[in-house]
């Protein structure tokens, strides 16, 4: 008895010893495992931080723009009352600059002087005169955008310690800019044009608004088409369709389509919408149709997942009290699945917002100055605008590119944030 007792104790001790012996090793393994996970997160956050820092660092200055103060005398001799819309407004800007710097005489010197002011100044004066012809004959002091080279210099993007021949601005121009700075006639102000104008080849006049409106129209078409179609398809497949080989085939195809590269949808759009139906090139309508094809599989898959997560007891309860199948779906299942469906839709939309490849084929990668006014006007989209600016030779477009990326990221953040809020607000846990 005694013997067996001690035997059991020994056994017990041995088991616990084995456990104790291995314990430290298991804790170490667990700590390592956790560290791997933490490391992965730190690495990805680090990369994200580098991305954001480089974009913001490059782009934050684009929200400000250098302006010159001009004392413009709206000379009646230059402005012909008959033809106000075609009068020589750049001549008006030039004569203003000449009065500001009366010592400038030579032809090439004058040309250098004129280059300090953006060509946009003339458009600005034209607009002012057309709006109110009364100002002719008066002197008005106003701020006009400086040329992009001046802007880049003031923002410190140009090296000034290199020889004159390897600079965009001559010594003379640098002296003028310094003189203007001393007189307080040059200053950096909030760049309103960036948020209100369409594209331009002059960086100081280029804006993101045209592309943003184009993206809005395109996404509106996408949303109006893909949400109803996607939800209807998901409801039918999940609630009504018989489970047979055909529905299996459809399911495989939908999952497959979700992974098809987007350029393929662009080619499809070119062949079907442009060449067969004869829709106009570069129109948000066609862009929206192409992006609808691209986002539909995503929305269908997300909507089906949302429907699957509604517990069967809800369906059975509804059927049990005598609801028809349609009433069960419309009154009970759909409202419960809707938050999940909306989340899927918003994420699909966010992906569509960042898409350029399919738009390339249907002519939306284009230089468009006028802000689109409808679904058939020529338009571009935000990511296309980024691509076009990144490819422009002027140095000032570098910061515009980064600023446009910031705007696009803000929209994406807004959309994904909305998806999270919707989910948190309406989600029911079972």
């Amino acid at each position: 008895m005694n013997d067996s007792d001690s035997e059991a104790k020994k056994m017990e001790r041995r088991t616990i010893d084995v456990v104790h012996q291995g314990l430290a090793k298991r804790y170490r393994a667990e700590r390592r495992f956790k560290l791997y996970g933490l490391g992965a997160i730190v690495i990805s956050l680090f990369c994200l931080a580098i991305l954001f820092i480089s974009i913001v660092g490059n782009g934050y200055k684009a929200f400000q723009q250098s302006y010159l103060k001009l004392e413009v005398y709206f000379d009646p001799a230059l402005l012909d009352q008959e033809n106000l819309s075609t009068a020589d407004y750049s001549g008006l800007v030039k004569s203003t600059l000449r009065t500001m710097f009366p010592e400038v005489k030579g032809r090439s010197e004058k040309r250098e002087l004129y280059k300090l002011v953006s060509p946009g100044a003339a458009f600005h004066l034209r607009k002012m005169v057309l709006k109110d012809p009364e100002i002719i004959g008066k002197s008005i002091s106003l701020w006009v955008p400086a040329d992009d080279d001046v802007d880049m210099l003031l923002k410190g993007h140009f090296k000034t310690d290199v020889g004159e021949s390897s600079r965009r601005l001559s010594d003379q121009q640098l002296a003028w800019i310094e003189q203007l700075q001393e007189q307080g006639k040059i200053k950096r102000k909030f760049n309103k044009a960036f948020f209100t104008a369409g594209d331009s080849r002059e960086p100081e006049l280029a804006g993101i608004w045209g592309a943003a409106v184009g993206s809005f129209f395109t996404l509106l078409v996408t949303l109006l088409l893909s949400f109803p179609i996607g939800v209807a398809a998901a409801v039918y497949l999940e609630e009504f369709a018989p489970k047979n080989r055909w529905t299996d085939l459809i399911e495989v195809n939908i999952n497959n389509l979700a992974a098809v590269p987007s350029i393929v949808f662009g080619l499809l759009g070119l062949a079907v919408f442009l060449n067969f139906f004869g829709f106009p090139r570069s129109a948000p309508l066609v862009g929206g149709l192409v992006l609808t094809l691209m986002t539909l599989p995503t929305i269908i898959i997300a909507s089906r997942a949302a429907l699957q997560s509604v517990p069967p007891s809800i369906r059975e309860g509804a059927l049990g009290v005598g609801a028809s199948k349609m009433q069960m779906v419309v009154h009970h299942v759909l409202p419960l699945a809707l938050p999940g469906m909306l989340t899927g839709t918003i994420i699909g939309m966010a992906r569509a917002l960042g898409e350029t490849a399919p738009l390339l084929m249907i002519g939306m990668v284009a230089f468009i100055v006028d802000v689109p006014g409808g679904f058939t006007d020529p338009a571009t989209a935000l990511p296309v605008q980024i691509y076009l600016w990144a490819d422009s030779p002027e140095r000032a477009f570098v910061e515009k590119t980064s600023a446009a990326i910031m705007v696009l990221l803000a929209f994406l953040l807004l959309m994904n944030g909305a998806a999270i809020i919707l989910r948190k607000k309406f989600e029911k846990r079972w």
Partner: protein
Amino acid sequence: MVRKTVLLVAALVFVFVASTGVVNAQSARDYISIVGSSTVYPFATVVAEKFGKTTHYKTPKIESTGSGGGLKLFCAGVGVEYPDITNASRRIKESELENCRQNGVSEIVEVKIGYDGIVLANSNKAKPMKLTRKDIFLALAKNVPDPKGGERVVSNPYRTWKEVNPSLPNIKIEVLGPPPTSGTRDAFVELVMEEAAKSYPWIKAKDKKAFKEIAHTIREDGAYIEAGENDNLIVQKLDANPNAVGIFGFSFLDQNTDKIQGSFVDGVKPTFEAIASGEYPVSRPLFFYVKKAHMGVIPGMEGYLNEFTSEKAWGPDGYLADKGMIPMPDAERKKYRADVSKLRVLTALK
């Protein structure tokens, strides 16, 4: 409630279908549609913007499709759904002209607008390269004449510039340039590689196919790096790597003179004046082609052509020169100006 949603969805679908119907009915286009070369794009867009802002017409829409892609779209037919103008960084080919004719686009007006220099450049931190076209050919061709002599080609043995030409620096050959899809690459091959290959009488004597095989094939062993269509990227890489040499259009050199410098080619530095006078050997003409059948149908066509061919745009002091386009000599500008005002149709390529 549910019925309302159904009604709403039905209404939206109806509105949508109705608006699609409008699209089909709307056959007139009130803006000019332009496609074509990405080299001409930065210049054509400036003209279009000026035109749109100073007239009551809408601003023309310009797509950057590449010269070949643009001509294909342009030649697809006559009618509002086809482009009115296509830009090209090379002359139209006989086959493209034929394709146009087959699709009913028989009357085309050719307008030469100026020149674009193709430059080789390296970082300001290094010394400027003094190259000849032969040096470039020997450094970049896949197969080069045997350095040991004899009339045969061998796979390119050169690793450094010094091996190519003893007067060049002893650095590795590292050239960033455009991919084969680019018009810049076509022009570079034609103006540099072909010219250099022709300087060897025995290569010149070969039949057309064998000649092209030697002159057009660029080495693929890593010395020539295809840097994509984005010239800004090449400029950034040159700034970071003083040993590398880049190939791109003159306007990118013009905008970045504080970072990079143009290499001498055959003793000439790529400056605005040298390219304009024709002294700098590597420059190509830029064109656009106008569909005559669209004149008077699409509003503003005449105005756009007049703006483009005015002295304040394409002249030596014009705003296109400010953007880096090399203007044509006076006589040539006059000739093409006259062609435009008379709308002289391109009948055959001389």
